[in-house]
């Protein structure tokens, strides 16, 4: 082997290194292109999901518009009285303010559907004996002032005194989930 051969080998190795370096850069570019394609695919998929979610939300908003308006109109009425104590005091005060003769009053906490927005209520079981107009006006005012109160039972019968009416009333004040 003479110096010409050595020179050839050196030049060939240099050429090989240049080619290798170019191929390395090309490899990096191709890997980057693949990564770009992957990210673009993920981004496209995310856009599709967003479009579906947005469409679902819009559809739900449109279909529930009236229901939500209903909730917005009624929710403040439910929030006025939200503890058993305040409900009991409220009933007691209303009976007192009505100047009605109540024979008995009983209050109890009633469990409704567990896990719902209205999990419990305060049930008031009251027996009155008074004149017809007084009793019915009082009941009308109660139902108008507290529209969320549910009158679950009314029994009307003759009172012990002539002209009087006996009214067994069961009402429930809903208590919202805290």
């Amino acid at each position, binding site marked *: 082997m003479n110096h010409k051969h050595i020179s050839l080998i050196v030049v060939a190795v240099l050429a090989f290194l240049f080619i290798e370096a170019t191929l390395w850069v090309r490899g990096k570019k191709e890997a980057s292109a693949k990564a770009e394609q992957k990210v673009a695919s993920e981004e496209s998929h995310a856009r599709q999901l967003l479009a579906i979610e947005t469409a679902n939300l819009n559809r739900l908003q449109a279909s529930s518009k009236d229901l939500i308006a209903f909730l917005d109109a009624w929710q403040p009425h439910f929030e006025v009285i939200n503890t058993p104590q305040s409900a009991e005091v409220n009933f007691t005060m209303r009976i007192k303010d009505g100047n009605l003769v109540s024979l008995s009053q009983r209050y109890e906490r009633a469990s409704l559907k567990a896990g719902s927005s209205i999990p419990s209520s305060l049930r008031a079981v009251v027996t009155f004996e008074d004149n017809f107009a007084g009793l019915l006006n009082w009941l*009308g005012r109660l139902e108008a002032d507290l529209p969320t*109160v549910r009158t679950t039972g009314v029994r*009307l019968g003759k009172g012990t005194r002539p002209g009087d009416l006996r009214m067994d009333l069961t009402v429930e004040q809903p208590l919202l989930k805290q």
Partner: protein
Amino acid sequence: MQIQKTIIDDFKTDRKDILPPLPLTGRLVPILFYASVFAAIVLSAIFALQLKISKGRIESLRQELSETQKRAADTKSERAALEERILRANEVEAWVEGSRPLQPLIIAITRSIQEGSSIQDMRLTRREDTPEQLHLSISIGTDSIAQLDRVLDAVHGQGYREISPQQTVNRSQIDYQATLVRQSANGPTPETEPQPEEQGKS
């Protein structure tokens, strides 16, 4: 004078053409070298530029992906909140539907009682599982069967219709029972503004 042959040979300088010539393929190596250097520089520059552009795009796409995913998550949570509100609204609606005032119905029934007739006993109760339905049980002291029709007219006038009616007519008393359901599908609306609690009221 005679000079020795070997000594003369020692003074000779080396001649270039004494080395054997390179093979033909060997002569291509420098050409290949120059070509590879040129191609490597040009192609590497192109690839490096493409790599830079691609990395820029990846960065941009990652940002867009992140924003899109965030917006999708926000939309999803907004939908979940709305679904929760709808559920709440349904429960509130069901409660309100089962809380229609009974006083107007009671008054209408009592006003329908004619002279000579009287209500002996009247019960209006809501079923626990279907509170929007009412169970009416009424005993009317009357001599006229038409009195019951007047009571039922009053019930219809309040937007209720009766199902599963049962009636027993004695000499001067009519016992009537029925389940009352609303005729119209219109939901109730609050007539008054919510008032503060009356806890402090004396």
